[in-house]
Structures are given as C-alpha cells and as structure tokens.
C-alpha cells in the first residue's frame, strides 16, 4: 500500500475522534456555551471505555459508559458555569484538568495494555475501486459518525429544536421572554457535548488505537475545539476539517512509509502546527466569523 492509499483508507477513522468531539462542542457552542473541557472529557471517556473492554464488557457497553462519563463531567461544568455563573473558560479548564487526572488515575493499572479493536464493514463494489477503495471499508463507528453528522446538519437547519438552539446562542434573553428555559436548553446542549466527547474518547482508546497510555488523547480534544472555529460553527465544514486533521495525523506514518527522512518531532507537531496556521487564516476573516459566529458565546447569562 502506498502513502496516498494509506492516507485515504485511514483518514476517516483517524478523523472520527476529532469529528465526534467537535460535533458535540459545536452543539454546546451553538447554544452559547464555551466548554473547554473537551480534552478532559475525551480522556475520561477513553479510560472508562478501555477498562470496560479490557475486562470483557464489550464495545457497546464501553461506549455507553464512556458517554455517560462525558455527560457527568459536562453536567459538573454546567452546574458551575451555568448554575453558579462562574467564568466558562476557567471552568472548562478545570474540567479538562480533572478529566485528564481521572483518566490517568483510573487508567494507571492498565498502562500500555492492549485490547482487540472492532472489524471493518466494507461497502461491496465501492470498496474494490483501486486507490480510493479503502475509503469504503470502515468500522461501524465511522459509518455512524457520518450518519450523525448528517442528522445533526438536518436538525440544526431544518428542525425547531435546531432553530431554538441557534436562537438561544444568539439572544438568550429573548428566548427566555418567549417562554423557553435558557438553562434547560443550554444544559441539554452541554450534556450532548459531553456525550460526544466521551464517545470520541472511547473510539480513540478502544477502536482507533486499542491500547491504553496516559495522555493518549494528546491534544485531540483541543484540536476538536479549534475545528469548531475552522468550521465556523457549521456541520459540513467541521466534517471536512475533521477529515483534514485525520489525514494530517496520518502524514507522519505515511512519510515514513514513503521513506522520507523528516525528524519525527516535526511530524508529531504537524497537527498542532496546522491548527495554528489554519486558526490564523480563518480568524483573520473577521467578517466571516461575525456572520457565522455565536453572539452570546462564553457570556454569563443571568
């Protein structure tokens, strides 16, 4: 398999942790809440899922529990940042530190253990196409993640719940005066973010690289937060961004396959550097950000 084929076939799976976490954060931010604890929620979910699969609980239970773990951390965030009106940035950082700590704490006995991943589902005919055929042979979670993206796009643009979510992000006061509970809507959105982050973590530790190592999330939660900005809070663009990062994170291995002699540190840094560069490019278009941005993002609502 050459480098290009390698990237094409692996891109979607590599993109899935970014995608799932970013979609969750997108919903939370759409409601006007900036939860920077994604990295921690992912790590916590990853640890829980690994422990369950390792102890024979199976992948379904593992994803479920990881999701619940993410939700619990996100509800803790909601209690402090929404209920008690604490600064959202600081609260998100606290959740991040706590989640990373908890994952290392519970994951400690499992350090560098491995488990079995899950098998791939290939779409007949399409997966036999040369070069891009690998794209159509993916595990079930990848397929579900793609479906989730489509569903979320539909919900946000076509359904009343989606309109309401956008409305509360733009002007929570007005939503309140229409008789909806701003808190209920936002708590729901934040919990969805937690659920998706937990699942993203589970995918990373039990399917994508089925092994446990402390710090294995390695900034992917933060890149997911950046992805939401890259995608200017739109599902389609976030999806494309996640694919880009999936490809970038495979570039290291691909480069080695191709026999290029680039220091491995540069390849490891690549996703972070790409984040910095893309963030600069997208953000400097202030008009674009303002047009698609969320008016009340990060502001405390009283």
């Amino acid at each position, binding site marked *: 398999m050459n480098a290009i084929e390698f990237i094409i076939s692996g891109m979607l799976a590599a993109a899935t942790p970014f995608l799932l976490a970013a979609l969750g954060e997108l919903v939370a931010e759409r409601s006007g809440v900036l939860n920077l604890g994604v990295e921690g929620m992912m790590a916590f979910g990853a640890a829980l899922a690994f422990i369950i699969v390792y102890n024979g609980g199976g992948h379904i239970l593992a994803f479920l529990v990881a999701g619940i773990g993410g939700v619990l951390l996100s509800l803790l965030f909601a209690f402090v940042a929404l209920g008690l009106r604490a600064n959202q940035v600081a609260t998100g950082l606290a959740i991040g530190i706590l989640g990373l700590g908890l994952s290392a704490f519970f994951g400690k006995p499992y350090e560098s253990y491995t488990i079995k991943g899950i098998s791939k589902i290939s779409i007949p005919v399409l997966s036999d196409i040369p070069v891009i055929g690998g794209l159509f042979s993916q595990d079930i979670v990848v397929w579900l993640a793609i479906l989730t993206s489509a569903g979320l796009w539909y919900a946000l643009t076509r359904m*009343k719940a989606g*309109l*309401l979510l*956008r*409305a509360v992000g*733009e*002007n929570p*006061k*007005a*939503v*309140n*005066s*229409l*008789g*909806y509970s701003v808190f209920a809507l936002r708590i729901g959105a934040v919990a969805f973010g937690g659920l998706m982050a937990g699942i993203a973590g589970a995918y990373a530790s039990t399917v994508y690289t089925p092994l446990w190592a402390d710090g294995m999330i390695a900034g992917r939660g933060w890149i997911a937060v950046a992805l939401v900005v890259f995608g200017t809070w739109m599902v389609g663009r976030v999806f494309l961004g996640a694919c880009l990062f999936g490809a970038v994170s495979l570039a290291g291995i691909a480069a080695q396959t191709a026999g290029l002699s680039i220091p491995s540190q540069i390849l490891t840094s690549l996703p972070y550097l790409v984040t910095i560069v893309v963030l600069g490019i997208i953000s400097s278009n*202030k*008009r674009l950000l*303002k*047009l698609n941005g969320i008016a009340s993002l990060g502001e405390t609502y009283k």
Partner: protein
Amino acid sequence: MTTPLLSLRGVSKSYGQVHANTAVDLDVAPNAIHAILGENGAGKSTLMKLIYGVESPDEGEIFWQGEKRRIASPSEARKLGIGMVFQHFSLFETLTVVENVSLVVPGTKKELTDKIIQFGEEFGLKVDPLSHVHSLSVGERQRVEIIRCLMADPKLLILDEPTSVLPPQSVELLFETLRRLAERGVSILFISHKLEEIRSICTHATILRSGHVTGNVSPRDFDTHELAKMMIGRDMPETIPAKPMPRGLKQLELANLTHIMEDPFAVSLHDVSLQVREGEILGIAGVSGNGQSELAELISGETVLPPSEGERIVMMGQDVSTLNAAARRKLGFAFVPEDRLGQGAVPELSLTKNSLLTAHSKGLIKRGMVNLSKATRFTNECIEAYDVRTPGPEAEAGALSGGNLQKFIVGREIMLEPKLLFVNQPTWGVDIGASAAIRKRLIELRNQGCAILVISEEIEELFELSDHIQVLNQGRLSPRFKTSEIQPEDIGRHMISSAEDVA
C-alpha cells in the same frame, strides 16, 4: 359594567430594596386601548412582566376574565391569550421571519408563510416572511413581533413603548393597526410616557408613579400638562434659555464621510457631512438602528478610520481620522456614550476608579502610578457638583441608578473642560428630574462656548436643546435645519426611508 378582561388587585413586586410595584390595582376592559403611563423607572415594565409571566409578583392577585390565575411563565400567559411586544424585540437576527415565528407558533413553514402574508394584508403589517431579520428596519421588526403575537390569537396585546422606535408617520400606521385590532375584540395595553400619543389613541389610562397607581383616568378629558403632573407629581421642570452666541470656531467637521463597517450586521455610513461650532448644539435625530452607533464610534475614535480613507474627521482644526479615542481626548474632546454600564463606566469598579477612565489626564497619574487621593478628590467634586446620589466615591458604578450614573458620567466629561462634547442619548432611561438636570448642564456648557453634538431618538429633547438639527436615516445624514425654523413633522419626514416605511 362588564367583567374586566384582566384585573390586578394589590400586586407588589420588589427587587431587593427597590419597590418596583406597590399594591397596584388595574382593570382592563374588553376592546379597550388602555395606557399605562409613567416616567422612566415608575414600574411600568415590571408590571407588564408580571402580567406576561416573566416575573411573578411578591403579593397580590391576578384575575383573567374574572377568574383568579397564577401566571407562572410567558407560555402560560400565551395560553390564556396574552401576547406581548417587547421594547427590545425578542427576535433573532440570524433567523428568517418565518423561522422566528415558528419558534412560537406551531405549523409547517408553508402554513406559517401564508399566514404571515395574510395577517400582513389584514392589519397593514406588510413584511417579507423569507427575509432574515437582520436585514429588516426597526419598523418591520416591530411588525414581525406584532404578527407573531397575533398568530396566537390573543385577547390582550401588551406593547411596551412601541412608538419609541418609530418615526412619527409610522406611528400613525401603528395606531391604525391597533384601532383595527381593538374593533375585532383584542384589548390593548399600551405602555408609554408620551402624553400626546396616549391622548390620541387610548380610551383609558392608568398612571404609575414610583410603583404606585396615582390615577385612573380617561386621557381625553385632560390636557398633557395635567397628565404630566399626575405622572411626575409636580410641574414639569423649567428649562433655561439658550443665549445667542457669536459664530465661533469649527470644532468638529465631517466631510463626506463614507465608511463600510467591518461588522456585517452594522449600518454603513454614506456621504455624511456635519459641522459643530463653538457655542452651538447640533442635534442628530433619527430612529435607532439607522447608523447612530456607527457614527458615534467613528466620531469618538472607538473605531479608527484606515489611513487610506484620508482626511475625513477634523476636530479642533486637526485631522483626527486615524487617532484613537485617547488621542482625540487630548485635543479637548469629551464623550458621553450611549451605554452607561460597560461603556461609559465599569460596573464592578468604584466611582473613583471610574473617574480615572477618562479624567486620568487631569493630573490623576504621576509617573505611571495612580494618585488615589487626587482621584478621590475629583470624584467627590463630581458627585457634589452634579448631584449624584450615592454613598460615596467608593460605591461601585453598577450599584447606582441609571439617572445617577448618567449624571456622574456627564459630570466627569464636563469636568474635563472639553472644547467639544459629544453626547449620545443624553437621557435614555433616565427619570425626568435627572433628565432636566442633564439638559440644563448641556445648555450652560453651550452658553460658555463649548461645541456640543447630541444624538437622540427623542425629537422633543432635540427641539429643547439644539440650535440646529440633522436627521440620520439609513446611514445618510440630511441637510442642516435651524431648529427655530422647522417643525417636528418636518424632521419626521426625513426620518422615514424613501420606500418601505411610507408604504
């Protein structure tokens, strides 16, 4: 007498120490256009929030069609048949008109679109259902709000200061709509502090003063002077006359200023020209959202013009287009902004620290360090000279009432002894006493030779203050009129845009 549609008995509501409403009784008859009259801070808005279920009363009872009810939320109010049009609209700019409606009214997009068009024709509320709200004028937004309320088939429609955002001619259109609604059996609760309006449209009026009901009258039986007296409890304060001044130096000049704002939701300015001389007050009239905030940002230096746009803003004879707010102040410019909390003052900081915001140039800084005793002295002087009611200079700005904070900010800016003073909405949300005091200060300052620019939505205020008036409409500024030579209606004509609001 028939059973009132809505009755309030002994309703009270307090926020901490502030008694917003005390033992209020109110009866709204079916088919009535009923005014709630009172000055800023009299408790009108709180009362409406209690009726609409946004807040719940501390004491008292609410009866709906003779039955005792507890209205716990706006959705319950809507179920009963109460609709409300807020002063600051509860619309979402990034959604379309029909999407906005669909948040409250059930139905498919097609059904709602048809219904919006139908209501528009029936009640003279024309609006395009598929356009985004951010592209609509203030008048159109109000129509969307009203349509949205009407689609729930209300028996009572509450309108909070609906005319404050409309030019005079559109006010007539609105009144026409309201009369049609009343004929079809919808009662209207109309909140206002504009007496002429109330006399022209309302059948009943309940007058509130500091949270108490001070009168229940038929407004057509009284003249505006008598109504005003009931509203403020004494005669209207006298104004001081502006004395004739010799033609002084040009302290501010904008020459054909055109500026496209970076913010896509902002109004861009086209070909704006104006000048303000010493000893003169120039008033800028216009309905809000026509470029006032953008003009204010450019004049204050909060937004700086790029160098390429050239010499467009001249202050005290010097081109300031590329200078920021601090640099413009050094030339003798002072500015009272529209928002008191968060712009003109930092709510969490003490008054002394808020003095520093702009008065630091008055020797309050020594070698980079703050001279606290001097700053406190400055603040005390300001509090005393401008009658700011506060425990002292250590009080946080956020704890002051709107009127007192405005007096503080106006005082601070005047104490900078400016050559050019710019005041954006001098008395917005300020009670009558403080408003009168602020206007008096401005005229005094003018009589001393200061050049003053005032932006206001209240035409009456501009006629009281200004020597000349210009009108801002959709980012364009009208020619200059001598206040003594024109009527408010002439100004009103310039406030309406060429096409949509006249239709």
